[in-house]
């Protein structure tokens, strides 16, 4: 199995660009993780690290592997493994950060500070109006939520 | 040369596979008697097989079983010489008695399948440790042994002391085995092999390259010294030598009584056995550890001697103040292990070889005496505890009168450990004494006597409580102790036999030592290894 001539270079170049994007995103995400003031804001930096920092370079590495002849017969194994890992990260990464954010909010392990508004806090503090539409709560927000 | 003796190679794997089945059967079979019978049958088979191995090894010299048909350093091999065969048979037979005794003791407990799984696992670990010819396999078998032991110590999960003792035993034990693993890393790093016989060659002949493992890497003397020093921690920990004895008085008494017998009688032997393997078979008297530039071996042996003495004294002294009969017996184990280590440490380069051989013989003899005697004592104590319902010596007062036969056996066991002349204990202690006299260490020889004398006080206290002391309350007449009494009586007969056969045994064990630990024995150990390599190597 070989990639048609000419295409391999294209694959490699695209893959390298993706890897480069990934590495730079990693660095920026790490800086963001250090600079941002609280856990919830850091979640966004971590998302950069997950999607552009991990998903993209994984796909890129798969492309490079598909194009790079010198890796031998196992390079399809590598490409396949990288793609499956990328897909799993794409699915699992957000679920993990969501679970973490929810747990942090429920257990008050991390405070939402600074903040403009925290509707979740309001809704969980007030006994939630069960069968009422979204309009009702909208009004509440306007009263208390404006910065 | 055939493929090797199957009973050597298949013993431990079959044993552990037989143990695997038990929990599954436990789901389907609820009758307890089935598990008792199963355990007895399996241990009896193992006892028969180890005895067969002993006979074969005795007749034909060291036997090597190469697993998978790979020549030894490439594959794992079990190598059984006379010493290993003797200890293996001892282990299997004592274990058989323990399994029979468990029929009585464990009948009222829950979780019988788990108990027997762990007990058979313990036996597999013991047999594997003794038979193995590979230092890394020794590590694995030590872990098999240890995990079973931790599980059994904590088996009475409702007792706070039991669980706590198991945790203490477990954490430090796991650290110790990890340190042994580091020692193995050093050994492999510098010698490039893990086989005991191969290491024995390489530690002695400075410029040899065995077919599959040539060359040295770095300074092998330093590496060997470091490895031995690190690995001694785990061995002394397993046999509860003085600074590492802290767990034993907590752990052994808290285990179920048959397990106490196994731990005190058999598990502590492993440490002594492994030290013999390390300091005599592998890094022996003419090895790299004794050359003039690096006299590491003498330092290590001196340290062991001193620790043995201290251990003997501490154990004997602590026995006197104990109020709990099983704790008293546990401290007695510490004391006796001290004696055993004193014997096996008499291998300095300045000591005449005859004295070394005599001391090692005494050590081995004492190991056997102690195993049988201590198993007997724990099991007999279990009977009295069952009668009185307490472990305190005060509460046990007079309980022996309800079970006179067991008491008789109990007394024989104590006299055995005390060292009264017609019994085995006397001869092994005497042999130890004369070995030290011969080696020109009269002070140490006298210390052996002193340790025995101190321990007499503790034993006398226990004996007095069980039989002579008037009981505070009236015990009910007990029934159903026929089986355990029979077991302890059989062991008592064994004790007497060990004493009566002393002249024969002394010479037989002396031959055993000569055939396995002295230079002639090591040579035959190595020859069996080389023969196998030649037989199995590719053309």
């Amino acid at each position, binding site marked *: 199995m070989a990639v048609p001539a000419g295409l391999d270079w294209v694959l490699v170049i695209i893959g390298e660009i993706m890897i480069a994007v990934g590495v730079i*995103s990693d660095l*920026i*995400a790490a*800086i*963001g993780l250090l*600079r*941002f*003031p609280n856990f*919830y*804001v850091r*979640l*966004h*930096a971590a*998302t*950069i690290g*997950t*999607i*552009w920092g991990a998903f993209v370079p994984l796909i890129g590495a798969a492309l490079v592997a598909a194009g790079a002849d010198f890796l031998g017969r*196992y390079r*399809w*194994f*590598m*490409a*396949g*493994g990288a*793609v*499956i890992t990328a897909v799993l990260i*794409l*699915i699992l*990464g*957000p*679920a993990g*950060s*969501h679970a973490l*954010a*929810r747990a942090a*909010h*429920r257990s008050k392990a991390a405070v*939402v500070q*600074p*903040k*403009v*508004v*925290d*509707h*979740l*806090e309001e*809704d969980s503090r007030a006994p*939630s109006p*069960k069968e009422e539409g*979204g309009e009702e*709560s*909208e009004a509440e*927000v*306007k009263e208390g*939520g*404006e*910065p | 040369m055939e493929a090797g003796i199957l009973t050597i190679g298949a013993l431990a794997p079959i044993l552990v596979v037989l143990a695997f089945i038990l929990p599954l059967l436990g789901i389907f079979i609820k009758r307890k008697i089935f598990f008792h019978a199963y355990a007895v049958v399996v241990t009896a088979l193992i006892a028969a097989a180890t005895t067969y191995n002993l006979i074969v090894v005795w007749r034909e010299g060291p036997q090597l079983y190469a697993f998978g048909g790979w020549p030894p350093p490439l594959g794992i091999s079990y190598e059984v010489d006379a010493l290993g065969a003797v200890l293996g048979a001892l282990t299997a037979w004592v274990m058989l008695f323990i399994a029979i005794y468990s029929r009585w003791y464990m009948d009222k407990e829950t979780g019988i399948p788990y108990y027997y799984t762990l007990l058979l696992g313990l036996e597999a670990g013991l047999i594997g440790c003794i038979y193995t010819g590979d230092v890394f396999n020794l590590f694995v078998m030590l872990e098999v042994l240890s995990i079973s032991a931790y599980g059994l110590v904590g088996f009475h999960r409702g007792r706070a002391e039991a669980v706590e003792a198991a945790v203490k035993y477990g954490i430090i034990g796991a650290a110790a085995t990890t340190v042994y693993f580091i020692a193995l890393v050093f050994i492999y790093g510098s010698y490039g092999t893990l086989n005991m016989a191969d290491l024995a060659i390489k530690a002695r002949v400075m410029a040899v390259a065995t077919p599959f493992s040539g060359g040295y890497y770095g300074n092998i003397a330093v590496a060997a010294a470091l490895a031995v020093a690190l690995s001694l921690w785990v061995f002394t920990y397993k046999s509860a030598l003085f600074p590492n004895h802290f767990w034993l008085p907590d752990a052994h008494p808290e285990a179920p009584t048959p397990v106490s017998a196994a731990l005190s009688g058999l598990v502590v032997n492993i440490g002594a056995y492994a030290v013999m393997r390390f300091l005599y078979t592998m890094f022996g008297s003419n090895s790299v550890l004794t050359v003039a530039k690096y006299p590491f071996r003498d330092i290590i042996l001196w340290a062991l001697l001193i620790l043995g003495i201290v251990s003997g004294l501490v154990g004997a002294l602590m026995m006197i103040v104990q109020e709990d009969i099983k704790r008293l017996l546990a401290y007695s184990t510490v004391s006796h292990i001290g004696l055993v280590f004193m014997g096996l440490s008499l291998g300095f380069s300045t000591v005449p070889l005859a004295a070394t051989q005599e001391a090692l013989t005494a050590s081995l003899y004492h190991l056997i005496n102690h195993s049988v005697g201590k198993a007997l004592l724990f099991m007999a104590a279990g009977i009295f505890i069952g009668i009185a319902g307490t472990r305190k010596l005060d509460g046990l007062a007079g309980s022996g009168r309800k079970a006179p036969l067991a008491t008789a056996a109990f007394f024989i066991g104590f006299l055995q450990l005390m060292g009264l002349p017609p019994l085995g204990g006397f001869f092994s202690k005497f042999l130890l004494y004369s070995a030290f006299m011969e080696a020109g260490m009269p002070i140490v020889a006298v210390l052996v006597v002193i340790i025995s004398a101190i321990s007499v006080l503790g034993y006398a206290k226990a004996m007095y409580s069980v039989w002579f002391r008037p009981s505070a309350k009236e015990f009910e007449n007990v029934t159903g102790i026929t089986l355990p009494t029979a077991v302890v009586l059989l062991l008592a007969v064994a004790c007497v036999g060990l004493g009566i056969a002393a002249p024969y045994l002394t010479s037989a064990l002396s031959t055993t030592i000569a055939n396995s630990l002295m230079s002639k024995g090591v040579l035959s150990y190595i020859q069996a290894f080389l023969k196998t390599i030649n037989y199995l190597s590719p053309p």
Partner: protein
Amino acid sequence: MADRLVKAVGPAVLAFITYIIFSGSVTPYDLVTATVVAVIVGLLVANLMIHNPRKLLQVQRLGWLIVYAIRYFFIDEVKAHLDVMSRIVRPSMPINPGIVRVPYYVESDYAMTTIANSITNTPGTVVVDLDTERKIFYVHWIDVKALEAERTRKEISEVFERFAKRIFD
């Protein structure tokens, strides 16, 4: 049992594809083991995974998935990433965070999860919690631009929702 077999088809196909891609080779050995593994895995997870197996057969859903993937990765992700990355590297670090309500109007769990994961996967918005009864996501937003439910939905999740509806509902 027959019901289970029908349900098992979806996960089995997924497992088969995963196995082959992960192995990266198509020797007879791989095909045989992949089939065995796929059947076993399919039967194991059948009841867990699929509620309505017929949806799998509608090919246009797959087409929408691909369209959605392309649009998502090349437009939405790029915009969001560049936005947050610029916030990180700018010395003033302009952030204006808060947790807002975002309603959603899809039925199935898969569609809802797709929307939520899409929201979380774009930097700048993270689903912190959700209320399945009132159909509201609580989204942590790095730069709160709106507070009313419909406007937040327009800003954050409208595109995702449109596609999710086509793919899963």
